[in-house]
């Protein structure tokens, strides 16, 4: 059944108890994301050190289980990642959601892959894809310290 693919244990767990859900008071970059269709919101805070590495990451937001779980899993994954790695992981994740059957990145451990793949259930629910991708697009904006809100209408 497809619903079981969509609402896997990992998603339900992260959706109910999102990790890193707090306002960071120690950040130097941030960005906001918004899905006008459903009202989901996310605000990502980053502390990026002098080596272009994320030393701290947190988010605030509200939304459905998928969007909260996605932000939770993503923020966990990005801790201590360098900018190039962040870009690689975001691209890999978005490509997987869009078309690729698997994740390709070599820097991912098996455990991390399993967590990310738990979000692949949205592929069968076109209306819910943006729930899974909003936090990732917003992370990209946060790395650039974008002032303008990331609006899901603008994603491809």
């Amino acid at each position: 059944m497809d619903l079981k693919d969509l609402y896997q244990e990992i998603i339900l767990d992260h959706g109910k108890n999102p990790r890193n859900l707090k306002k960071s008071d120690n950040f130097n970059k941030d960005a906001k994301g918004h899905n006008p269709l459903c009202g989901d919101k996310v605000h990502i805070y980053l502390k990026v050190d002098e080596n272009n590495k994320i030393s701290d990451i947190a988010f605030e937001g509200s939304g459905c289980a998928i969007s909260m779980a996605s932000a939770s899993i993503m923020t966990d994954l990005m801790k201590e990642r360098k900018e190039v790695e962040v870009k690689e992981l975001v691209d890999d994740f978005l490509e997987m959601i869009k078309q690729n059957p698997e994740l390709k990145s070599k820097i991912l451990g098996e455990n991390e892959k399993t967590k990310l793949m738990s979000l692949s259930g949205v592929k069968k629910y076109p209306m819910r894809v943006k729930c899974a991708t909003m936090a990732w697009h917003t992370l990209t904006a946060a790395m650039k310290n974008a002032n303008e809100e990331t609006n899901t209408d603008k994603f491809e």
Partner: protein
Amino acid sequence: MNINNIKKQFPIFNNKVQNNDLVYLDSANSSQKPQVVVDRIYDFYTKEFSNVGRSVHYLAVAATNLYENTRVLVQKYINAKDPNEIVFTKGATEAINLVANTFGQKFLGEGDEILLTELEHHSNYVPWHYLRKSKGVKIKFAEFNSDGEVTLESIEKNITPKTKIIAITHLSNVTGAILPIKEITRLAHSKNIPVLVDGCQGAPHLKLDMQEIGCDFYAISCHKMYGPTGLGILYAKKKWLEVLPPYQGGGGMIREVKKEGITFGELPNKYEAGTMATAQVIAFGESIKFLNKIGIENIEKHENELTKYGEEILRKNNSVKLIGSPKDKGSVLSFTLDGVHAHDIATILDEDGVAIRAGHHCCQILHDKLGLSATARASLGVYNTKDDLDKLNESLNKCKKIFEG
């Protein structure tokens, strides 16, 4: 009234949706269409098509007559005085934009106030918002109470000597509250303030009598009224349509066009520029006949019973919280479910063929006040049954199960 016979007239229910029988609980968003309406569109395009109001050939004259017949059907249905008080638009949204734009142009200026309510759909707020910039008007919002109602008192409190127009919903598309529009109109008229009613949710469910209500403008969305998309209606008292400026310019709405100047046509052409949604207008005549055949009083009674039943079973379900409990309520059931976001509810229900809406339902002001980013909404139409509401409740229990593990 035999609901099974009525339901049979809606072809959508003959087909499975993702292998499920369709439980359609999204009629406040848009209603399904009876076969007669679908057939009318097909017949018009296959046997009778021509543009209206332009040519003198047989088909053009016949099409024009059909088009104008619907105007008269609508006039009678809502008890307007004159068919020319019925203007066809692309939707209720355009009907409200038409009034906001033309009334704003002619009668509003710096510091004037427009009174809306916190229940309004974005369609009855955004068109007025433009006048803040262009005219410097102020927009006020009459508050809704803890039951999700806007009372006469709440309107009265917000009227000032600067109030120039009141624009209110007939029936809230979130809380279901039916506003005392007759009393509000009496009050407003005693102070010489015209009233626009957003009748999108009122028209499909309640008996309409423009003489009794007395409002100046009433906006209708035909696709919510068992009619085609792309069509709305503005009822406006003739005295307003005569004094307000034209809205859009184009063919059909003019009398004479010269290089030095233009004179405009008479009603109803003045407000119907360009080629209109001809097939939809003609098919909408069948929607009115469909409603007349069943009788709106019967529909109201049926939907009231269902609404009460729905409220009852949802109240018994401890995890469900209903949004608003207005005394006078239409067939809209908005709710939240403990621990499950509205969008997750909608996706899980969809798997069982239960179609509801989730989100802010184009009412962000209302949701902000309630501190909710989204709610789930089940809304009813003439074809719904208690069985549909039981299925809704069952599927909600399934949501709980999935989320509670």
